[in-house]
């Protein structure tokens, strides 16, 4: 069915630009966040000092926690834009792919596609898992309302108390793997949407190994502290 034409600035491609930019903002944040996490290996004093310095960063030009709130607002805006774009396009694409009831094609052959990766297949559900995890994560380590292993004023102790419990580490591991899969396809997709792919296929593009590398670094970087704590290597 033909609908009215919408200006190109509000087209599906423009919506993808918004999704790509907001996604890349969050990836940049993840790299900073990972750097902070790895300070756990430097011991309690260094870790807590780092946490304190984030709050006093830029003083006296910025107020106390000024930088932190700038980052928080930017991240919240990114999450809202990213989710809005995902939901808008997801709903549109379901109709566009001509589903009849629960099925598009009735054959049971080739239902999983021919060039899709597992990562691209799980992008949407993975996103939902990540959002639920982020809420839990903020309640746990930021607000400390949920405090498995005991609450503390020391960020270092919050982390160690939590990850000494096996199921906390397992929950974080599942979530971090979901993030890794999301980025495995997501970084490639964002850069391609922003016009940076110059290769005939996804696998031939230099963006693909770049995407895999960043996804792997972030995944491993985030998994190291909890597992080191659980296994008693640090903490």
């Amino acid at each position, binding site marked *: 069915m033909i609908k009215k034409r919408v200006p190109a600035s509000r087209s*599906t491609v423009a919506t993808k630009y918004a999704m790509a930019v907001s996604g890349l903002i969050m990836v940049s944040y993840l790299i900073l966040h990972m750097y902070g996490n790895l300070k756990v290996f430097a011991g309690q004093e260094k870790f807590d000092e780092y946490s304190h310095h984030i709050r006093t960063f830029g003083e006296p030009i910025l107020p106390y926690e000024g930088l932190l709130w700038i980052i928080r607002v930017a991240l919240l805006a990114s999450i809202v834009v990213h989710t809005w774009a995902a939901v808008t396009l997801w709903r549109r*694409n379901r109709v566009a792919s001509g589903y009849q009831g629960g099925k598009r094609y009735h054959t049971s052959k080739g239902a999983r596609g*021919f060039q*899709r990766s597992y990562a691209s297949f799980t992008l949407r559900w993975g996103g939902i898992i990540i959002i639920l995890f982020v809420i839990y994560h903020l309640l746990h380590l930021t607000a400390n309302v949920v405090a498995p292993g005991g609450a503390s004023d020391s960020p270092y102790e919050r982390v160690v108390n939590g990850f000494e419990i096996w199921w906390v580490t397992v929950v974080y591991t599942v979530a971090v793997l979901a993030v890794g899969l999301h980025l495995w396809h997501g970084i490639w997709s964002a850069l391609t949407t922003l016009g940076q792919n110059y290769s005939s296929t996804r696998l031939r593009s230099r963006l693909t190994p770049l995407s895999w590398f960043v996804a792997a670094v972030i995944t491993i970087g985030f998994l190291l502290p909890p597992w080191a704590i659980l296994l008693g290597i640090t903490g």
Partner: protein
Amino acid sequence: MKITVRIWRQKNAEAKGTMVSYELDEVDENMSFLEMLDVLNEKLTLEGEEPVAFDSDCREGICGTCGVVINGEAHGPEVTTTCQLHMRTFKDGDVIDIEPWRAGAFPVIKDLVVDRGAFDRIIAAGGYITAPTGSAPEANSTPVPKEDADRAFEAATCISCGACVAACPNGSAMLFTAAKVAHLGLLPQGQPERDSRVINMIEQHDAEGFGSCTNIGECTAACPKGIPLDVISRLNRDLMGALAKP
């Protein structure tokens, strides 16, 4: 060879369709896929049944008229059009599922025939140049770098068959639209309308109800002409450039 085909039968645009099985005993492995359907239709006609409706024209892989989803793959397992697929690709005793292109913007008219008018309207929105071209120009008056000429030609091989849409899990026609944008955008004749072209074609693409691109490349796996995936990135760049201008 003996094969069983399961075909989507749908009386008209409004009717509810269903998969129907037919058995064929004497299929020659040198038959094209469409000839196999011709044989089936002759059999159905003799038996007084309604033949299966499907599109075809040149039957040599250059017009883009034919195209069905075979065992879940647009144009079947070979990288070619349905008419250039031969029965030797299949084995004796195979069960072959045949369905129409499935997309919101490609409504089924009957059986395996879908309405691809949406593609025509995307082209009409900007997939051309308005300069009068006259007869073939002097070859050396407007030099085109070899690489650009090759890439423009690669994009121009699109035959508008619609396999990219049928294969895309999002029902997006981005590869088709981008091939046209890349083809004209790479050549000097396409420059005056380069910005308005990408804007108008994307607006029409969306108005037709096609989905958005998620950059997974199913379209290029199905494309019988091997249109490269980077044409989509090129369209994204062009649109960004066009939107940035006042």
